[in-house]
């Protein structure tokens, strides 16, 4: 039916009393998400949006049985908030916060690696399983329940892709924004693997962008282990080189940072790559027709 989240997912919102946290917690509640608690250090015991607020995630877990956390904490404190969630044995941590220093994320990764938790993000729109739950900042009403999985490094570009799908009556099983930062908790491959195991998902849309080699690695995974059709797009075909990556950044990745190289590898691995962002919905429709 969906990956990683469902109707039963019990959500705690870290940073619930802040402007962003409060606004989006309300939107998630309105969508029907089972939000059970909020956390803001120093505000434990209060009530916000009709939910109990706790000082710590651990307390929220004990009192409300929360198993998933969504983070709206400002960048200087966000890494600590993620680590706190992981140490409180939250299964799924979704970090919306944009602007966390890379060195903080290195520490987060070390902690994450030794745990059972999954992190989605940071700097991402979150995750939604249409009709079941929405944990993040995406507009809920553009989504439609169905059988296509969406994985993306971008926010609004994902909405664009989802819009094209829903317009054609193609629903989504789950849409995951994995985030645009150099270090993120969930990769394309993690999400592809989960969609592969989800019987309900029939096809996947994968939206990448320039920088790093995540798209190439995902393409090789699709070729060797993934047996559902994938439609892909890479943003930044016209981006000027040198404005985005450090001098040596491309070296580590053996020079594979450009959109052209990513698209070519994806194509070689059997992904249906579209050049225009306006063609995502149509390409997916074609792919589904062929499958029947």
């Amino acid at each position: 039916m969906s990956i990683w989240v469902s109707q039963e997912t019990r959500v705690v919102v870290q940073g619930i009393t802040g402007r962003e946290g409060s606004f989006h917690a309300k939107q998630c509640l309105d969508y029907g998400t089972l939000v059970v608690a909020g956390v803001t250090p120093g505000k434990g015991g209060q009530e916000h949006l009709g939910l109990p607020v706790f000082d710590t995630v651990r307390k929220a877990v004990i009192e409300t049985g929360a198993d998933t956390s969504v983070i709206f904490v400002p960048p200087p404190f966000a890494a600590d908030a993620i680590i706190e969630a992981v140490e409180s044995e939250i299964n799924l941590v979704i970090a919306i916060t944009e602007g966390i220093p890379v060195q903080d994320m290195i520490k987060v990764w070390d902690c994450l690696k030794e745990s059972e938790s999954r992190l989605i993000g940071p700097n991402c729109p979150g995750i939604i399983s249409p009709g079941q739950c929405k944990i993040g900042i995406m507009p809920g009403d553009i989504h439609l329940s169905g059988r296509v999985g969406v994985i993306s490094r971008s926010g609004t570009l994902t909405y664009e892709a989802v819009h094209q799908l829903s317009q054609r009556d193609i629903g989504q099983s789950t849409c995951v924004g994995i985030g645009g930062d150099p270090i993120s908790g969930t990769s394309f491959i993690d999400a592809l693997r989960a969609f592969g195991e989800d019987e309900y998902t029939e096809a996947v849309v994968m939206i990448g962008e320039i920088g790093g080699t995540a798209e190439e690695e995902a393409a090789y995974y699709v070729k060797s282990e993934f047996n559902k059709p994938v439609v892909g797009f890479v943003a930044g075909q016209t981006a000027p080189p040198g404005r985005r990556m450090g001098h040596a950044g491309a070296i580590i990745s053996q020079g594979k940072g450009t959109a052209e190289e990513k698209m070519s590898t994806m194509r070689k691995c059997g992904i249906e790559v579209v050049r225009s962002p306006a063609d995502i919905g149509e390409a997916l429709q074609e792919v589904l027709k062929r499958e029947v």
Partner: protein
Amino acid sequence: MNIHEYQAKAILDSFGVPVPNGKVVVSPEEAFDVAREFEGVVAVKAQIHAGGRGKAGGVKIARNAEEAKSYAESILGSTLVTHQTGPEGRVVSRVLIEEGVQISREFYLGLLVDRNSKRPVVMASREGGVEIEEVARRNPELILKEIIDPRVGLEESQVRNLASGIGLDDGLQGELFRFLNSLYKAFVETDASMVEINPLIVTERGEILALDAKMNFDDNALYRRTEIAELRDYEEEEELEIRASKYGLNYIKLDGSVGCMVNGAGLAMATMDIIKLSGGNPANFLDVGGGASVEQVKNAFQILIADENVRAVLINIYGGIMRCDIVAQGVVQAVSEVGVEIPVVVRLEGTNVEEGRKILRESTIRFEVADSMRDAAEKVCAAV
């Protein structure tokens, strides 16, 4: 954020990384005075935020103070064009005068964050003074990498691997270990995203020295590195980009004629892509951000049309947190205040889209309203 070589060397020096003696100057007279203090041969190095200075004539070796003065005279105020500056080049307003050293061997050394292992990595190569991209293309096997466990730091065995891999004398391993440890400390404690020492040299006296140094910093960490943030050199940046950054807008100037305003970086890049596919050329990348106000949209629009190359504007907003009515209000305000003569194509979708379209329809300004991304791109390219 980028800084100049002389600034990077001052930072590294403060962490105990050995660098040549030198001083930055802004006039030929100062260059003369500094060079005279060093006695022998000195290097005169143009300070701009771009590589390839040597080939472009921005680095000279002077035999004496008189010569240093004349080199400084010719370099200061000149425009240096390298493969990294673009054809317009950069005007040099400072030169670094450095004491000459006798070079015995040259190497490459780099420190950055590896996306795959999610840890810092040291890269080293025996091909010093050559661009590392070049080495990666021709002889990738000559690039050695050691991933650092941040809880342990750089280990001696790793330094031994690097030293023997690049063919450094056994007797210099201890010195390389100290050098790398200081470099790593500087990397961590300044929130650098990259440090590049190219070349790292061994002098004839057997010392290890950072002959050149380049540092980039993580913009997300500048809030806690105010001493680094102060090193920002506005002269190295586009005027419109500086203006945009003051408003918290993410703007990059390009050389096309279609100005674009989009919310979200991914959609902004995709919009540039579809403009190109429709036969136009994007004039810029502009992400107005997630929760922009009417004021912010107005600022963005004004920056966009301040670029003289812009012949038409495409506004592509997918409202999520950002509401379409806010965007519409900002655009209408900006256009009525500035009085735009060029065609403006607007595509709105998402949160409060009907209210947004209504504001556009009811304004006295004539916008071209598009109903999809493709439609918008085609309309704007036809209007250029």
